[in-house]
């Protein structure tokens, strides 16, 4: 345990160096997350013509949509995971063997790689945050307690994103590649997380489906907390459920990893 802890700073340093080395690639990744802005254009054009009222009875004005999709961009930048692609690649190339040789659980080394990329991501998030504060300050919650809960909410969202990626990634031990599964997962994430459409605007039947899936806790919940859609009590309940999901996904990925890695044969070479 202490040995793992002592390795963490070095792992983070290596991760950061890698992120800086491939900064052009990361910049392209950032440019490719334009979806919130595409959705924002459409929703605000709609909101200017007729008032949009959600199932909860609260209205969405054009500036509420601006706030929502600015936050969607920010959340997506911070809460993002590519672990399942990394795993698929390494299993196919056989390079996962190198990770397995290290005296540290591979899940931890993947996690460190993700965390080390965050400083560069903050670089991109900062201007958008400034734009958010300048244009939609009125849409943000004033209650400091909500902002206090927002921090664990972001951590929880990141855990859900990372662990679900690992869980889908471990499928590649059992089938040749889980990239197609990931693609279906991603499409569901787009619709049911609130990334494209605020969940509040869903028709009740679709909303019921979204509520039992983990996707909402990955992107939608942090956005809703940031834009003041929930009271303090509601927020607390949502964060608790979110962490329960994170815990369940952690158990699932640990079990799947354990049984999957036994089948790993390190082909390639």
């Amino acid at each position: 345990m202490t040995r793992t802890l002592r390795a963490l700073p070095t792992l983070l340093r290596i991760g950061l160096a890698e992120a800086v080395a491939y900064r052009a690639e990361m910049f392209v990744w950032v440019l490719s997350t334009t979806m919130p802005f595409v959705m924002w254009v459409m929703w605000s054009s709609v909101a200017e013509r007729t008032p949009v009222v959600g199932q909860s009875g609260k209205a969405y004005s054009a500036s509420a949509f601006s706030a929502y999709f600015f936050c969607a961009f920010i959340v997506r930048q911070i809460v993002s995971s590519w672990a399942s692609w990394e795993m698929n690649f390494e299993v196919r190339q056989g390079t996962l063997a190198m990770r397995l040789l290290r005296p540290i659980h591979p899940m931890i080394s993947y996690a460190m790689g993700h965390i080390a990329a965050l400083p560069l991501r903050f670089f991109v998030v900062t201007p958008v945050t400034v734009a958010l504060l300048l244009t939609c300050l009125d849409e943000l919650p004033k209650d400091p307690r909500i902002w206090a809960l927002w921090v664990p909410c972001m951590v929880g969202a990141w855990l859900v994103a990372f662990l679900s990626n690992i869980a889908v990634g471990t499928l590649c031990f059992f089938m040749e590649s889980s990239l197609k599964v990931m693609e279906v997962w991603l499409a569901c994430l787009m619709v049911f997380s609130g990334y494209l459409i605020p969940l509040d605007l869903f028709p009740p039947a679709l909303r019921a489906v979204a509520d039992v899936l983990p996707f909402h806790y990955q992107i939608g919940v942090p956005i809703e907390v940031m834009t003041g859609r929930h009271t303090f009590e509601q927020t607390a309940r949502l964060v608790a459920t979110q962490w329960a999901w994170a815990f369940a996904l952690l158990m699932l990925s640990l079990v799947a990893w354990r049984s999957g890695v036994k089948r790993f044969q390190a082909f390639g070479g």
Partner: protein
Amino acid sequence: MGRYLQLLKLQLRTSALLAAQYRWDFLIDGLISLVWAATAIAPLLIVYSGRSQTMIPGWSMNEALVVTGWFILLQAILEGAINPGLQAVVDHIRKGTLDFVLLKPADAQFLVSTSRFQLWRVVSVGTGIAVFFIAFGRMGRAPSPAGLAQATVLLCTATLVLYSMWILIVSTAFYVVKVDNLTYMFSSIFDAARWPSSVFRGVLKAVFTFVIPLALMTTWPAEALLGRLEPVTLVYAIAASLGFAAASRTVWLLSLRRYASAGG
């Protein structure tokens, strides 16, 4: 010319053999295509749910659905015919294996563009056409023959513009080497084509009309099918697509000159 047709036939055959080898992909790609189509249609359904008025300026629900149909169709062409071949160029440049392509006694751009097709994306083409049928079925009418003819012309110009823009983007790989994910960037720009272009205003409208002509790709063909396209637009579309094609060819040739190979 005949030689190139024969080459195209050969390349298509290799892709067909490859597709036949991974038969199960037919089912999986079909499923994925349906899921992505659902993500394109879901926002429209929610925007228009329970409201009869036009929520997007100048477009009713069914008319907007026609635009989405074009979006799905062109995305299938992009991912099935354009992306795979040109993704290969990026790999070739990084590894230095573009040498082998350049050595062959045929045009390099032709060879790389036709080198791979994802034939199972045909399923998505089917999905897009199905969306047209649904939309026109709900409107209770069919597109006019003239509209169909205009739409066919616009399909060609849209494909040509998509392809030319891809060549332009790929050419940057000669300058910046590590750009594996360019595909994703272009796809995400193309994402904005899923709405009728009237939702864009101000600067964005200018950008998406003149710089990245998204309107040409989905909105105009949809208007053609709906039978309300100004004939002048057709002329503009043809001129723009030819202009793009010429520009991309020039840039490709210039960039190729910069290619310095790489050590193996």
